[in-house]
């Protein structure tokens, strides 16, 4: 998928993973989660080889919406994030799971609708539930796969702000896959750009420029700004769908 990629993610930083479809963003997340092993090379999370079920990692999968018929309370979902991997029914740990879920729901401001069925919540509310679920085990690393892609612009802004605030308060390292860098620009420390089999990392100002991206990918890439200051990267999509050798 990509080769010769070496990068470190600073603890406590907020990094956006950008790049066209099929460039390996989700593959990277899955590798960090220990669900895929790198075919060559090494990846370490807090100095250790990734393994499935690592409690130091909170994960928000790519989830457009839940099935509207899904009849389980948001609160139950967050509790499952806490101890859903354990066998049996909750007997002694019930109070602990409930308290952990409550704290997590409060942290994302989802307490008000946590007793409603997950399937009936709005897209923004569902993303907050997913975030609450990811935070419930007090992780140190937060992995989010396109948490913004299915939200409208207003909700996108609120969500990024929330992620930023929670991450600061809990001293979390955040790795977030995004399709569009714009709602993230005011908040992120780094971008990890993946395209055409290459990975490059730096601050947004360093990486997202016509010169730098063209140089990295040795093909004409253009960074365009519109009248409202929004950034668009043109020219990488084709590279991804027709990779060279």
């Amino acid at each position, binding site marked *: 998928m990509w080769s010769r990629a070496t990068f470190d993610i600073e603890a406590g930083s907020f990094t956006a993973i950008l790049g066209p479809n099929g460039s390996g963003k989700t593959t990277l997340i899955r590798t960090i989660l220990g*669900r895929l092993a790198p075919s060559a090379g090494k990846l370490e999370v807090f100095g250790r080889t990734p393994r499935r079920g690592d409690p130091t990692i909170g994960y928000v999968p790519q989830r457009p919406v839940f099935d509207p018929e*899904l009849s*389980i309370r948001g609160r139950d979902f967050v509790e499952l994030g806490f101890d*859903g*991997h354990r066998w049996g029914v909750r007997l002694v740990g019930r109070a602990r799971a409930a308290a952990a879920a409550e704290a997590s729901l409060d942290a994302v401001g989802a307490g008000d609708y946590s007793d409603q069925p997950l399937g009936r919540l709005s897209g923004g509310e569902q993303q907050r539930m997913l975030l609450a679920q990811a935070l419930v085990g007090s992780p140190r690393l937060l992995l989010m796969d396109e948490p913004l892609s299915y939200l409208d612009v207003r909700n996108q802004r609120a969500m990024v702000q929330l992620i930023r605030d929670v991450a600061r308060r809990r001293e979390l390292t955040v790795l977030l896959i995004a399709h569009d860098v714009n709602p993230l620009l005011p908040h992120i420390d780094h971008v990890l750009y993946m395209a055409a089999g290459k990975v490059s990392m730096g601050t947004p100002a360093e990486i997202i420029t016509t010169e730098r991206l063209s140089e990295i990918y040795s093909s004409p890439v253009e960074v365009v700004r519109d009248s409202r200051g929004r950034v668009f990267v043109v020219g990488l999509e084709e590279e991804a769908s027709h990779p060279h050798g």
Partner: protein
Amino acid sequence: MVDAALHLTITNPTPSWNPFDDLAMLFHYDFMIHAFQAGTIVAIVAGSIGYFVVLRGSAFAAHALSHIGFAGAAGAIVAGVSPVVGLLAFTLGSGAAIGALGNRLRGRDVTIGIVLAWTLGLGVLFISLYRGYATEAYALLFGEILGISERDVVVTLIAGVITLVALVVVYRPLLFSSVDEELASAKGVPITLLSVAFMAILAVAVTEAVQVVGVLLIFALIVTPAAIAIRFTSHPPYAIGIGVGLALLFTWLGLSVAYFSPHPVSFFITSLAFATYLGVRLSEPVRRALS
């Protein structure tokens, strides 16, 4: 009439409308006691597992399991062994295969449907090969709760306890993977193992329930109570509780009404389930307006 050597008139018992007398009448015969015992066990198991069937969107798989089981049971009759053996073998085998196909796999239902059609064909062949009465086949298709022996009740109880214990063991990870497979997998939940285990538990539950309602009517006890329950609560333990309660109610009422009527028990159980579901769905706009 005058010259008849033997004259027999069969009349149905009529309710006295005195609840104590009627209850005494209901439990007067052993076959009714056995029916109530087996029906109660089956209702508890079916109501519990039904919640997961509905949550996982496996209603069709549950339905298919019972029909595939029909071929197994018919084959067992031809082979001269107990139909329950064939039923269990076929439901377990196909359950494990369906489980291994994965829960959310696109096209899974198409695959199930194709296998289902073929096994029903097999079932027809077995029935034609069996030169006995059609009553055995009839009992499989529509249930024969009034023909349950004391030994059957014990077997049902053992199977029921096994299914419930298994369900308790897998409860949390099963719930997790039913709600979000991707997340559960990332947390280390063995998705495929759970999926196979769930279908195996369901296979045993279906085999039990077939005695009461038959393969064609299995929906009434497994899917309908749970489908009603989740319209009232999205709190999983409550939903399971309501589902079990409804399954018990349908079974008990169905048995009681059928006792005083010439019509089959299965008809009353399925009709009660359907009428309740219909009533709940139709009253939803009203209840929403009131709340």
